[in-house]
């Protein structure tokens, strides 16, 4: 008999004693039936709070107390009027009936509470797993929730490349199991059945091993060790649902990433096709000019006057320069497209802007460029070479379309977790509605009349997006164009470590 049951019985005694204390002074004034009612209230109170056996005991005690204290001759169990035997029988019957009913009600209620807790746990699980894309993250979240829900120690073991469950690949270190049990985990992984403590196979193991089983295959093995406060075994069903949900989340993540890869492939294909047609056009135009000018100079040298010769020579150098810019851009695109990882490091923005301005020194010789970059702007994680290309392309565009006397402006500012940069000019701006399409031309495969500018902006977009940012264009109030782009700042943690390392110097 556990201490809590003993307490329940004790509670029964107390309640009967209290009822007797109420009833005893009233025994001569009230009818026996009314006295019985008071005892029945006592039985209900006990039945509502305790288990069924204590309620039964209370029922019997109540009948005995009623007989002893309230039925003449008082303070004996003897009965003068044998009609009271019927009263006792009805009273006992009623008390037992009440006990049974109350116990059943209580069982229903606690079942409902448990079911609600299970539903809540599963809801939290699916909520927590949704949106996770990496198998490891899903397992980790599932293991943590399982620990909480089942009040147990949980870890999930994953298979390595060769398809062997490895204790090295685990979600946490909170549950330590003997490494010899790796064979049990492997068995579970291969057979898709539970094993270990409390099951038919490997019952001497320290943990219970459960397969995380999807439709087609098994993704991992969950190991559980129950602690003293663990939720009882009736939750085995819940555990099954838990595992199924986890497997489902992994299947969904795998399906999503497959779909995404396919989408990227399609996009890359169309990019390649439109690139090819745009490039062959853009490459041939300057090449034609160079060939034509050089051939003319060679075959008609003596017949050309000095001015014409100089003009043709400028054509050669200018068009060669154009070809060079194009090839630079193409190299960047090829780099991006072939999936070369960005060489991201954290730079002061002004350094990148300064490098781009230096590169364009000749073209900017008679131009004003106003820069407004706050000195307290945080370092921005960028691929320096690619980001310099962005500024070069944007500035070249601005130079192309802006009258020489109007300044070009570069402004930057921090907005929450991004750095926003604007390149503004006072040129012709964009034709109405075109501001949304200028970056797309190239990607949509529209090859009509794409000049260097179209390619340049498309490359800007590709580079900015590879940095996790976005780029847009709009017409400027008072005439001109604004190209605006955002680059995300690195998280606060890294900023912390930066200020720390600065402090050390």
């Amino acid at each position, binding site marked *: 008999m556990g201490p809590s049951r003993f307490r329940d019985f004790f509670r029964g005694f107390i309640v009967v004693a209290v009822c007797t204390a109420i009833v005893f002074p009233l025994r001569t004034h009230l009818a026996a039936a009314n006295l019985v009612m008071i005892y029945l209230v006592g039985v209900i109170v006990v039945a509502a709070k305790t288990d069924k056996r204590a309620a039964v005991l209370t029922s019997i005690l109540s009948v005995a107390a009623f007989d002893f204290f309230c039925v003449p001759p008082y303070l004996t169990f003897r009965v003068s009027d044998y009609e009271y035997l019927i009263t006792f029988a009805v009273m006992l019957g009623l008390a037992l009936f009440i006990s049974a009913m109350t116990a059943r009600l209580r069982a229903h209620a606690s079942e409902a509470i448990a079911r609600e807790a299970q539903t809540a746990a599963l809801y939290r699980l699916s909520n927590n797993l949704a949106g996770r894309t990496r198998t490891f993250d899903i397992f980790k979240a599932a293991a943590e929730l399982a620990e909480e829900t089942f009040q147990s120690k949980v870890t999930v073991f994953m298979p390595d490349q060769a398809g062997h469950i490895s204790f090295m690949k685990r979600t946490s270190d909170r549950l330590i199991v003997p490494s010899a049990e790796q064979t049990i985990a492997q068995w579970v992984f291969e057979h898709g059945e539970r094993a270990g403590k409390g099951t038919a196979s490997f019952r001497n193991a320290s943990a219970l091993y459960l397969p995380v089983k999807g439709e087609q295959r098994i993704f991992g093995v969950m190991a559980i060790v129950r602690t003293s406060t663990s939720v009882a075994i009736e939750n085995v069903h819940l555990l099954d649902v838990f595992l199924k949900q986890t497997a489902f989340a992994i299947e969904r993540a795998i399906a999503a990433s497959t779909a995404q890869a396919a989408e990227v492939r399609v996009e890359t294909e169309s990019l390649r096709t439109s690139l090819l047609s745009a490039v062959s056009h853009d490459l041939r135009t300057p090449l034609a000019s160079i060939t034509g000018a050089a051939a003319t100079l060679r075959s008609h040298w003596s017949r050309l006057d000095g001015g014409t010769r100089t003009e043709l020579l400028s054509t050669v150098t200018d068009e*060669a320069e154009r070809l*060079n810019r194009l090839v*630079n851009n193409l*190299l960047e695109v090829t780099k991006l497209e072939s999936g070369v990882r960005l060489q991201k*490091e*954290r*730079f*002061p*923005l*002004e*350094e*990148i*802007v*300064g*490098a781009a*301005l*230096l590169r364009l020194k000749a073209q900017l010789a008679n131009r004003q*460029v106003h*820069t407004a*970059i706050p*000195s307290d702007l945080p*370092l921005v994680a960028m691929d*320096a*070479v690619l980001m*310099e290309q962005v500024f070069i392309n944007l500035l070249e565009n601005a130079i192309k379309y802006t009258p020489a006397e109007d300044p070009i402006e*570069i402004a930057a500012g921090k907005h929450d977790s991004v750095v926003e940069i604007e390149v503004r000019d006072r040129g012709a701006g964009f034709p109405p509605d075109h501001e949304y399409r200028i970056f797309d031309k190239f990607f949509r495969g529209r090859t009509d009349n794409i000049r260097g500018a179209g390619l340049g902006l498309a490359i800007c977009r590709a580079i900015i997006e590879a940095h996790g940012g976005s780029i847009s264009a709009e017409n400027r109030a008072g005439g001109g164009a604004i190209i605006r782009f955002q680059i995300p700042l690195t998280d606060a943690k890294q900023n912390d470590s*930066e200020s720390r*390392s*600065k402090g050390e*110097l």
Partner: protein
Amino acid sequence: MSEQKAALATRPEILLIEDDPQIRKFLRVMLMAEDYRFYEATAGVEGLAQAATRNPDLVLLDLGLPDRDGVELIRDIRKWSQMPIVVISARGLERDKIEALDAGADDYVTKPFTPGEVSARIRAALRRAAVLDKNEPSEIVNFGNITMNLAARKVSVGGADVHLTPNEYKLLLVLLRHSGKVLTQRQLLKEVWGPEHVEDREYLRVFMSQLRHKLEADPAHPKYLMTEPGIGYRLLTEP
């Protein structure tokens, strides 16, 4: 007139190591027009032999040679000579340039280049070599509106003293000692912070940025503290 004759008599010798005949052709025209004496080599082994026998005043070296790795060639030359080496390399091959500079090259030009760019690099490298030979560091250095008093370790901009932290001053001093020459991030980090910090490129950027804010009128449009993207920095002390 007599000065010009003297200059011709001592006109510098340049060794051109380049395998591409077209580039060799136009560099030849440029070198002739600039009155240099020059020798040509079309491959690395031949170039190294010429460098050893002729001991030129400067080597113009294409990194993409068919027979030998250009960076190895620089290391070989540096074993016995400090002659200025200017390398020629294509854009996008920043790592090659950094390796060449770390191996001891003095400067680089990026293909495609104009004759003007090459001749400016050659002149600057020759001038630096001449200054190094004299080895007379002056006490006070002026460039633009910036004055550095090396004895007092003081820097002023437009006559107003500027406070530099010890590391900022050290960085500026290293740049000044090699003024006009591009220094790789690794070289600067090693000289200013020590060999254990050669990978801490972010330090360098933060300090360069601070120097620019203290010395340049517009830090985003520097006149003296120039960035060589992906490679390093260069101090320009003359326009």
